[in-house]
């Protein structure tokens, strides 16, 4: 498409762009670790509750061992998040490709 020239300039925006060179955003942690951690904890707690569920609790849930199943699914999901993060860590800070050398 049309690719000539820069977008219109504005002093307030330029100032913010200038300041952004000091950015600390690269220090942000990876959220997959937190999601994984919370869901592993939930998975373990709810699975354990499910293992010891009484008849009354199973009957309440229409005969489904919902705690056991939900617990195992949450555990698996939590482990998947941790595994994903371990196998494919966050991409390194964006290399400066403003000028693709054309």
């Amino acid at each position, binding site marked *: 498409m049309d690719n000539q*020239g820069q977008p219109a300039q504005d002093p307030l925006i330029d100032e913010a762009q200038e300041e952004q060179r000091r950015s600390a*955003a690269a220090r*942000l942690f990876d959220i997959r670790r937190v999601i994984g951690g919370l869901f592993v904890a939930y998975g373990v707690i709810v699975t354990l509750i499910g293992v010891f*569920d009484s008849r009354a609790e199973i009957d309440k849930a229409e005969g489904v061992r*919902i705690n056991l199943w939900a617990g195992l699914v949450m555990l698996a999901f939590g482990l998947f998040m941790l595994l994903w993060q371990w196998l494919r860590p966050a991409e390194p800070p964006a290399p400066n490709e403003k000028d*693709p050398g054309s």
Partner: protein
Amino acid sequence: MDDGGGLRLNMNGLDYLILALYFVTVLGVGFAARRAIRTSVDFFLSGRSLPAWVTGLAFVSANLGALEIIGMAANGAQYGAMTVHYYWIGAVPAMVFLGIVMMPFYYGSKVRSVPEYLRLRFNRPTHLLNALSFAVAQVLIAGVNLYALALVMQALLGWPLWTAIVVGAAIVLAYITIGGLSGAIYNEVLQFFVILAGLIPVTVIGLVKVGGVSGLMDAVRDSKLGEAGLHAWQDTGTTANPLGAHWIGIVFGLGFVLSFGYWTTNFAEVQRALSAKNMSAARRTPIIAAYPKLFIPLVTVIPGLVALVTVKGLGAESGDLQYNNAIPLLMRDLLPNGVLGVAVTGLLASFMAGMAANVSGFNTVFTYDIWQAYIRRDRSDEYYLRIGRWATVGAVVIGIGTAFIAAGFSNIMNYIQALFSVFNAPLFATFIIGMFWKRMTALAGFWSLLLGTLVSLSLYLLYKGGVVHFNSDLEESFWGAGLAFATAVVVAAIITPLTAPKRDEELRGLVYGMGGVDLKGDVLAGDAAWYRSPVLLGVIAVALAALFYIPVF
């Protein structure tokens, strides 16, 4: 609603442990995000550094407030399958349009907010008008969220209204003030999964109870909705259907004006995309969000229908059996301790997600678009960062105050729709004309926006005052949005020829066909892969939305 004793859930210590773990995690995310904040852009836009899957899930989560979940389950019970219109025609096409067509202008021009786009494209009065109305809308809606949170916590857990309001507000306040937009977005991603973990067990057990999908369909046929409750488009040639809406109203009112107005110009949503790390990720943000959006009716409309056929007397005007209590009633009846704790946590998470989106949108617009642009210019970046933190405190405090404005409305969802029709439809008209018609002048932009807003506001007030009659609040919001849109178009067409246009170089990067938009300049390795193409992903999402209609046609 009285003390809601009938809805009280039987939470035990382990359920509260699950809830407490969530609170601790959410606050932890806020504190941990703090080290990544040094500049104001770090605070308000996460330093434009986030990957597309994170901003995409935050985008959908920001809309997945509990009002949405509780309201859509209520609509499911009240209107049946027609509720899917809010998702498949009323959201997905607009989200895809935002990603493919509008995001290049938003992200490419490096504006820091949606109102700021108006400042560059038109003039300062247009900008100030939009910044102020957005700021007011956000604190109003944050208040609605907070009030709804308090009502549910009071009914389900027996917490006093004030305890729930203060605990909810304090947690959101803490993680946004400390962690900024990164705190809000990271928590939204977490909340997205917790909300699903809470809703899926209710849906599964509900379906087991009614004998699966076919059992549910049989039961709905025997309910007061009847056969019509299973169809989205049947009988829309007239208004003799559960929603009382003609297909023209659904397609143009909901599918075009209301939904495009909401999804494409609402900064609380667009902000998530502006925090993405490059143009490709920004464009994919709303499109990635469209995929979960396609499936969310499974966990809102189905529980609504299950509640309709299993809870006797659902649909009362007041008390415990209102439609809005569809999901809480199912939780009470079907979930044993354990998943019950997760479900309550999911509901709370959705309240926080919705409110956090409003608050983080507000603090950005307040700081950049009101304070920096009109009150204190040329201060240091640290100064604006500090103002942003104070604006967050202010938003939450005002939100607590406005929580009680919401008390006067029976169906919270319609109240929200009404607010959006007042603010969003004329805004969308002004945007879309301004983005595609380079001749449109600054003055035309201002008057389009102002008169459009006044038209929909007056129609709303006349309807509330009983002067004008509509069949439902929903019908009023369709008409209000449509009229506001038409007004904005007509005003733009009349005023533009009479006033001086902006120079071409001032419009570069802001208007279609003027150049200055670089879709590939900041591309990262991997973004060229076919499965990361915004256009392809968007087309697939829209096609899926159309296909999904087939079984409920």
